[in-house]
Structures are given as structure tokens and as C-alpha cells.
């Protein structure tokens, strides 16, 4: 298979895949009502964050239970740029990547020394501590009430072009180019030397070092890249309406991880699948509970229960997630 792949077309292939993703979302959104369009925008946003886990945990083997906190960094970064310094939303998104990447640099310097449960716990503490900074320095970060930011109304040229569009649809259009770009970058990185280096470090640190890879630096770079992505996602997520601690709770980090695991930590397709699952599953369950007239007191807990169970089943039955299962089936067929 790898023999057939011409190396010159790495960029081309990822360009095509990203465009395909873009068109897929657009086409899908045409079938949807505004609410589901906003859910699609949500998926497009969270996908970027899940991809950051695919890189961090999937490719380089470092676990983070605090991606949500890094999203908060991106969110606050962009929201402050817009509300305090009057930057345009678009530029603030781009800058959010750099702000959170810088944050990732510091985090990475600490995290590169840690592994396994140590890293998991430290990032978990971070997930809790970072949002509380907003409350601590209330005058700057506006405390619990947070910073109100949004995508604004669709610009006139667009409505002239495609007709009246809902706020929800507009949010999808804002997010989608960034999602496609993120996918493009992640595909490129994972299919070339950088990604290979990361996976080498994940598989065997000593061998990797002896192959000339600077382990510490590589781990820091992974954190920088993953944080940049998560920060972008956080900025986009914040512009749904608010940047505040309660927008980036600890649960958010765990939800992202769940999406990545259900889909398959190693696979980009898995990340897409997992993100769809965690966003649409609660809606599906709500529909079912309504139809079956399950009382609210149970129904309210069913999404969490289902997603938790799904996570457990995934790790028991196939820790490589949906993507891994698919691969398994394909492999079987070949034999």
C-alpha cells in the first residue's frame, strides 16, 4: 500500500480530504434545521480539539485530561483581543492558536518530564485550576460572568450570495474553514516525518533517542501543536456566546477524550466519528426517552450513562475504538 502512494502528493491528498470534509458538512447542513446546524458547528469546533488529542495521545502517547483548559486559554485569548483591544474576530482566532501554543510550550516543558498517570493527574489538576484563574483575576477576566462574544450576524455579501441564513448556519460557516485547515495540517503532520517521529517516541523512547530524536523537545513540540489546535477550538467554542469558566469545565476535557477514544485514538477518521457520536448521541437519547416516556429523573442521566458505557465497552472490546474495529474487520476479510 505504501509502495503505491506517491510521496509527492502528501499535500494534495490532505487538501482533497479537507475539501471533502468541508463539502460533507455543508451538504449535511442543508438537510438540517437550525438547531442541528448549530450542532454541526459544534462538531466542527470540537473536532479540532479532538484532533489535538489524536495528536497528543494517539500519536505521541501523552495523555491529557486538561485539553478543555487549553481551550479556555484560546477562548480567553481571542475574547480579550476582541473585547479589550478591538481585534477582528478572524484575526483573534488565528492569534488564539499562537497564544495557546505558547501556553502549550510552558505546559510541555513541565509535561515532557511526566508520563502515564502522572501526566494524566497533572493535566486534570490543570483543568480545574486554569478556569479558576478567571475568577481570581476578576477585573481582567470578568470572573464567572465572563466575556460575551459571538460570531455576529452573517455579513451582507454572504446573504446576498446565498440568501437569508440563520445565525446557526452562519456559525457553521465561520467554523468550517478552520476545521478544514486543522484537518489539513493534522493530516500533513501525521503522514510525514513529524508524525512518524512522534509515534516513534510513543513506541520506544530509548530507541527513538538513539535514532537521534530529542525526546524532551519532541514531547514539547507535540504539546505546542496540540495546544495550538485546542486553543483554536476553544476560541471558536467561546464565540458561540460566552467565554467563561463554566464554558470550559473539567467535563469538557473528559468529553473530548471520550470522543477520541470511542472513535479510535490513533485515527483521524475515528476522531470525526467520535465527535459526531458525543454531540449527536445525547440528542438521540433524548428523543428515545421522550418516545418511551422515560421519566426525566432517569432520562436526564441517560446521556452520561450511555456515553460512559460506550467508553467502557470501547476500551474492553476494542481499545482502538471504532476505527480500530473497522480495520480489524477489513483485515479479517483479507485473510
Amino acid at each position: 500500500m505504501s509502495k503505491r502512494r506517491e510521496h509527492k502528493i502528501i499535500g494534495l491528498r490532505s487538501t482533497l480530504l479537507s475539501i471533502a470534509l468541508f463539502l460533507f458538512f455543508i451538504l449535511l447542513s442543508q438537510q438540517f434545521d437550525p438547531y442541528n446546524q448549530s450542532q454541526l458547528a459544534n462538531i466542527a469546533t470540537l473536532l479540532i480539539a479532538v484532533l489535538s488529542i489524536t495528536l497528543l495521545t494517539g500519536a505521541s502517547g501523552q495523555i491529557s485530561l486538561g485539553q478543555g483548559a487549553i481551550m479556555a486559554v484560546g477562548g480567553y485569548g481571542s475574547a480579550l483581543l476582541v473585547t479589550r483591544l478591538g481585534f477582528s474576530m478572524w484575526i483573534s482566532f488565528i492569534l488564539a492558536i499562537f497564544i495557546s501554543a505558547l501556553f502549550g510550550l510552558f505546559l510541555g516543558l513541565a509535561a515532557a518530564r511526566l508520563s502515564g498517570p502522572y501526566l494524566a493527574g497533572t493535566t486534570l489538576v490543570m483543568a480545574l485550576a486554569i478556569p479558576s484563574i478567571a475568577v481570581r483575576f476578576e477585573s481582567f477576566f470578568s470572573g464567572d460572568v465572563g466575556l460575551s462574544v459571538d460570531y455576529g450576524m452573517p455579513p451582507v455579501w454572504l446573504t446576498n450570495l446565498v440568501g437569508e441564513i440563520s445565525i446557526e448556519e452562519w456559525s457553521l460557516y465561520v467554523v468550517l474553514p478552520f476545521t478544514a485547515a486543522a484537518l489539513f495540517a493534522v493530516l500533513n503532520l501525521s503522514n510525514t516525518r513529524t508524525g512518524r517521529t512522534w509515534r516513534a517516541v510513543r513506541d520506544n523512547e530509548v530507541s527513538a533517542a538513539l535514532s537521534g530524536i530529542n525526546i524532551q523537545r519532541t514531547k514539547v513540540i507535540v504539546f505546542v501543536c496540540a495546544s495550538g489546535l485546542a486553543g483554536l477550538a476553544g476560541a471558536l467554542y467561546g464565540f458561540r456566546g460566552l467565554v467563561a469558566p463554566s464554558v470550559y469545565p473539567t467535563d469538557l476535557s473528559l468529553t473530548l477524550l471520550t470522543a477520541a477514544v470511542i472513535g479510535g485514538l490513533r485515527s483521524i477518521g475515528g476522531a470525526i466519528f467520535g465527535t459526531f457520536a458525543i454531540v449527536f448521541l445525547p440528542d438521540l437519547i433524548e428523543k428515545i426517552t421522550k418516545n418511551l416516556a422515560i421519566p426525566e429523573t432517569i432520562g436526564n442521566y441517560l446521556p452520561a450513562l450511555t456515553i460512559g458505557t460506550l467508553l467502557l465497552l470501547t476500551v474492553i472490546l476494542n481499545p482502538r475504538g471504532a476505527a480500530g474495529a473497522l480495520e480489524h474487520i477489513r483485515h479479517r476479510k483479507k485473510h
Partner: protein
Amino acid sequence: MSSSLLSISKLSVSFGGVKALTDVSLDVPKNSVVGLIGPNGAGKTTVFNCISGLVKSDSGTFAFEGVEREFPKPHELVDLGITRTLQGVGLFNELSVIQNVMVGADKNYKPNFMKELFGLSGKVEAGLKQRAEEALAWVGGSALIDSKPSELSYPDSKRVALARALVINPKLLLLDEPAAGLGQDDIDALASLIKQIKRRCSILIVEHHVDFVREISDTVNVLNFGKLIATGHYDEVKRDPAVIEAYLGHTDNPGENSKLGA
């Protein structure tokens, strides 16, 4: 001295109370195979670990190509032109064979993150792949390219590990027990491969198969309890009473007659 590639002198290491190495000096001339032998726990692996920066030395100097410097960090080894195989196999389990070797080849190209980010590094990839294929061909592993390490037989995985070390055309190759666990025919194949490699680079080798060591090495160093007890050609060294006492044992030891049929 000028022809010496690697020269270690007065290397001492201790772990807590254990003195693993005391004042060990070692010289690897260019284009030669140097054996490092000695009983278990003598400190052979520790010498390797010091050279490759996995263990910190207490004292001692390190000179490569006549230039004295600090003992390198593991990832700096490749920059000097030194590669090492591990006592185990140490392949990257989830990378295919070719990718494993491509990782080893990385140092041939300067990294360019931006190009990779934008998918413009096709040329580099192609170059890496070509080198990796060549290295695999050299060790006789061309057929393995698309396999996963878990699918390889033990000798084949050792082959791949060797290819990964050879792919950057190192000046010095450190081999830690490369023959361990191999069958006789694979050992023979390895011996002839090493003779080929020798034309391009020097080799420092730790091995307990003494016949193998005898066959391939120009000089051997014998370690015992962390001290160098003998240096010279194998046939000289093997008559050294200290070596016999510490390592080879008297007369009909099993290692000596491993090639009954030959």
C-alpha cells in the same frame, strides 16, 4: 592515535554502592571491529550506556575522531555518526518496517516543520524512503518492508534494527549482543554482514558467542568486575590466564566447541 575513531579513557561509573566500571580505557580504530567481552555483570553494557549517554559517568573522557568532548546525550549520538542497537530489539511496534528505518534515517535531512505542515515535504519523504529501502536491502530485509514488527521472526526483527542503525551510514556502530538468541545460520549470516559493514564503518561489539567474536573482531577487550583485564587479538587474549579464569573457563567449555560440525 590519529587513526583512532573512538577513544574512551579512565571511564568510571558506580551505581550507589556498586562500582560498575573502574578506569576503563578503550580504543576503537577506524574500520575495525572491536569486541568487548567479559563475564556477566562485568560492565559491558554499562560501557555502551555511557558512550550513548544513557548512563552518566563519574569520570572519564570521551574523544571521537580525535576531538575530545563530553559524553554525548542519547540523541546527539547520531549527529556524531554513532548508532547503537539494543540488547532487546527495540523496534517501534506500531510503525511498519520501512517507517522504522525511515525514523533512523531522519538525520539525513534537516527538519522543516512548516513544509511538513503544508504538505510540501514529499521530496524529503521520498528521499528517506529510498535510503531506508537501501538499508533494508543491505541487511537482506527487502521483503519485509510493509510488515509490522509484531509479524517478524526474531532474526528478521534484529535485521530491521540493524538496518535502522545503518541507514545513516554511521562511522561507528555499537552492537549489544547481536547474536543472542539467533540460530547458527543466522549468526553466520550476521558475521558475513558485519565483515561487509566493516568496510564502511567501525564496530564496537558486545557478545557472549566467543566464536563469533573471534571470527569478526580485530581486537577484543576483556572486562571483569568493571576493570579491563586484557586487550589484544582474540587468540592472544584467550590464552591469558586471567581471562580464562574469569570468563572462558578451562579447556572444553561449551562455547568453544559450538561448531562441532564445521
